[in-house]
């Protein structure tokens, strides 16, 4: 096979910033509906933009120009990050847009809020992915054809949903406990729907850059582009695909500029192109050009987090389970709501980061995680989030004041819709009949139209009456709910 002779290296960077919550006390409940710590969000975004996004984007732009179509990279930018760029660092969004315009950069779809919807609700998951696709179209002008889930969370089931949504490929972790003796350096496919190609992260080569680059105790320090390329070339003879996935903040933020990370980045592509048989490709190209070697079976969700490579960093303890359950119990109500503020907060409260802050398994080695965590303890994180969520729930419930009345309105609504349907059908029938009548002889028309006319208006009028009475009762119902909500407000 000619396709299998192709060897690909795929560089992918994750870009995400959550909207961190401000200190929200329970006595703010019902008074204060703004939940975000603008100062922290802005200062972090500005810091990361100046230290990482802008200089790294510039290096990548130069590389693309220099290598003339031979260097390609892939990004995923969460919808929340895009919104933060729009608020605090529009020039970053602009520079990503320029990268998109080169055609050498692929942008992946994900859940808009970098959320955990994939482990809670398929419907919600799909909605959020669609929202993100729209965001990518609007702000970067791209149509996403490949997918990566929050923190590379993947299971057979999630993969099959993604396949059903029409994506070509999906990225996840080359987790040892899933791979067993298999190598991550081949292309795999989903075990339920083999049309979806699965790219597995080579965590050793990825973490060499992401975690070990500035570690002076590491026996391979300092890491140069040549050294790295030689490691990659060692894989070369029999492997098809090397997937290097990491946080974009690796450049300039986790590894400071002074560590030489940008020099490494600007020399790495030339070294790889020269020393190894691998070509730079994006996940969609990989899916088109390479042949999967087999299906990969992942019955329970994996991710790229921690030693365990599972989802316990977000869904591990009782606090996280309770908070997630509470959040997703509101799904139906939020979906029936049209308030744009509710929709926005719903998105922002989804971010997986909020649940990451509640993890208790880091009590032992909290140092690494404390870096990302604005809270002193997981308990603190939980309390703050739950206070915010309680206020959010109050706001959502204002639209659905009482489950009984809510049900009634819902039923009436259904009935109105049903009757509307009948009216529509019958008017169509009337039209059809009157046309038929027109085509027939005038003498016959007379009698027929008379009978039709006799039947139709009567029928229509009856329906109209019915509709009016329904509308009236609906109005009454909404009036009582309005009254009730004002009462509760008082």
């Amino acid at each position: 096979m000619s396709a299998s002779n192709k060897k690909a290296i795929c560089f992918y960077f994750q870009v995400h910033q959550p909207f961190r919550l401000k200190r929200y006390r329970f006595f703010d409940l019902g008074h204060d509906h703004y939940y975000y710590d603008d100062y922290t969000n802005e200062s972090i975004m500005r810091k990361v933009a100046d230290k990482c996004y802008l200089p790294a984007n510039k290096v990548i732009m130069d590389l693309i120009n220099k290598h003339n179509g031979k260097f390609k990279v892939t990004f995923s930018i969460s919808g929340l990050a895009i919104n933060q760029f729009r608020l605090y660092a529009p020039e970053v969004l602009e520079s990503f847009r320029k990268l998109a315009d080169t055609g050498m950069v692929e942008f992946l779809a994900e859940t808009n809020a970098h959320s955990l919807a994939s482990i809670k609700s398929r419907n919600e998951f799909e909605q959020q992915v669609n929202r993100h696709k729209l965001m990518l179209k609007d702000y970067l002008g791209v149509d996403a054809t490949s997918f990566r889930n929050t923190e590379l969370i993947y299971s057979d089931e999630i993969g099959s949903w993604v396949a059903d949504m029409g994506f070509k490929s999906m990225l996840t972790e080359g987790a040892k406990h899933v791979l067993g003796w298999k190598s991550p350096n081949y292309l795999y496919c989903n075990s339920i729907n083999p049309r979806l190609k699965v790219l597995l992260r080579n965590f050793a080569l990825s973490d060499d850059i992401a975690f070990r680059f500035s570690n002076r105790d590491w026996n391979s320090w300092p890491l140069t582009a040549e050294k790295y390329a030689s490691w990659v070339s060692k894989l070369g003879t029999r492997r098809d695909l090397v997937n290097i996935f990491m946080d974009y903040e690796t450049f300039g933020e986790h590894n400071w500029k002074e560590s030489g990370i940008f020099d490494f980045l600007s020399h790495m592509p030339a070294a790889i192109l020269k020393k190894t048989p691998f070509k730079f490709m994006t996940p969609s190209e990989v899916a088109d050009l390479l042949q999967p070697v087999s299906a990969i079976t992942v019955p329970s969700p994996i991710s790229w987090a921690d030693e365990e490579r599972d989802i316990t960093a977000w869904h591990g303890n009782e606090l996280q389970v309770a908070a997630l359950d509470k959040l997703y119990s509101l799904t139906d109500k939020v979906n029936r709501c049209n308030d744009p503020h509710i929709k926005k907060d719903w998105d922002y409260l989804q971010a997986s980061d909020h649940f990451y802050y509640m993890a208790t398994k880091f009590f032992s080695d909290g140092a690494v995680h404390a870096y990302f965590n604005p809270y002193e303890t997981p308990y603190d994180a939980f309390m703050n989030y739950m206070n915010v969520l309680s206020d959010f729930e109050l706001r959502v419930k204002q639209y659905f004041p009482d489950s009984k009345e809510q049900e009634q309105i819902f039923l009436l609504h259904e009935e109105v819709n049903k009757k509307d349907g009948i009216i529509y059908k019958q008017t169509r029938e009337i039209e059809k009949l009157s046309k038929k009548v027109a085509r027939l002889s005038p003498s016959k028309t007379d009698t027929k139209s008379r009978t039709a006319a006799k039947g139709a208006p009567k029928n229509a009028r009856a329906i109209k009456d019915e509709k009016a009475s329904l509308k009236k009762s609906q109005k009454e119902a909404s009036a009582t709910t309005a009254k009730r909500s004002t009462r509760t407000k008082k």
Partner: protein
Amino acid sequence: MRVLMFGWEFPPHISGGLGTASYGLTKGMATLDDLEVTFVVPRSWGDEDQSMVRLIGANRIPVATRKVFYKGFRKPLEMIEVSSKIVPYIDPKDFWKVVSTEVSGQNLFVQTNDKGMIDFSGKYDVNLLEEINKYAIVASIIAEENDFDIIHAHDWLAYPAGIAAMAVSGKPLVIHVHATDFDRSGGSVNPDVYHIEKNGMDAASKIITVSNLTRDIVINRYNINPDKVETVYNAVEPVNFSHGSTFKKGFGEKVVTFLGRITLQKGPEYFIEAANKVLRRMNNVRFVMAGSGDMMERMMRRAAALRITDRFHFTGFLKGPDVFKMLELSDVYIMPSVSEPFGISPLEAMQSNVPVIISKQSGVAEILTHAVKTDFWDIDAMADAIYGILNYPALSGMFIKNGKEEVIRLKWDNSARHVRDIYYRVIENYKN
């Protein structure tokens, strides 16, 4: 190794932290084969638990007229006959009872306020210092008559006794700081007490503090070489909760409990303010302030002024089983201490399956992970934590489960082993 230990109280005649801690430590030491502890208190009542240690009451030591010179005190005391005037400071109320009955006859009247701190006012102060001195004199006699390798003195009332024993025997002294006068007084330190504390610290070969918080105070406020000061955390006695029927609440509301002396040091006013904030937002909760103290009346007036007395209850001083009953009723335990050298009571609450909120200004905050920690003045954070624990069942569940596991690991045996290590090091250095 034989240890001569000077304390001020021994169960069941205890007023609080000091007695509980020194008893727990002694009990932990009793499990170590190479330690033999003789515990001296100013007065033994005869009903103390002596299964673990040999207890000597200073009041039981037959003292004839002897000449003792010891220049560490204000005046050389010449001839001392030890009478039963040396009393252990039981709880403030009991002490009041004991001493006030003697006012007429002996003209000995020592006034303590409810902080357990002695107000040195008028002519009575001389008598308390005299008592401490008397204890020191008896200590020197005990030191002469007993054989031991090291001296261990608990808190300032026993430091002079420890120094006296050291002077007589030439054995090294270790002092154990359970609290300093900075904690008890909230800043306005009594110079006499400071003097005694400072002398003890200077004389000792090693100073054990119950937390790093206290260690810092010892180093900075008493100007002690940091190398000499070492922290040994307190622990808690394991409690068995299979004592028959558990007490049932007579009402459906949640209960938030403050349990301790109602004094400046314990921060009761912050509890009231936080309670007020919570009550503004939820109704199905009651607050309990259990204990007595010099700020109780003021607290009652404050609660009345806030119009929360229908939900805010005062129980007065609770004893023994009532304490556990109170804990069983509680859904949250709060200790907003302004300055707490250690604070064993939150550990007892955690044993009773009660989530705890503690101030960052407490020593116990240094070792607890599964507790809410707030600044004592941060009533917003405190109110928020109370609300969170009461309203989010997952949170209280986590606290109860993890808290219990955590507190089980805090054993007196470990503290005792740590103290034994210190003994060996001190004796080693003392020889050289």
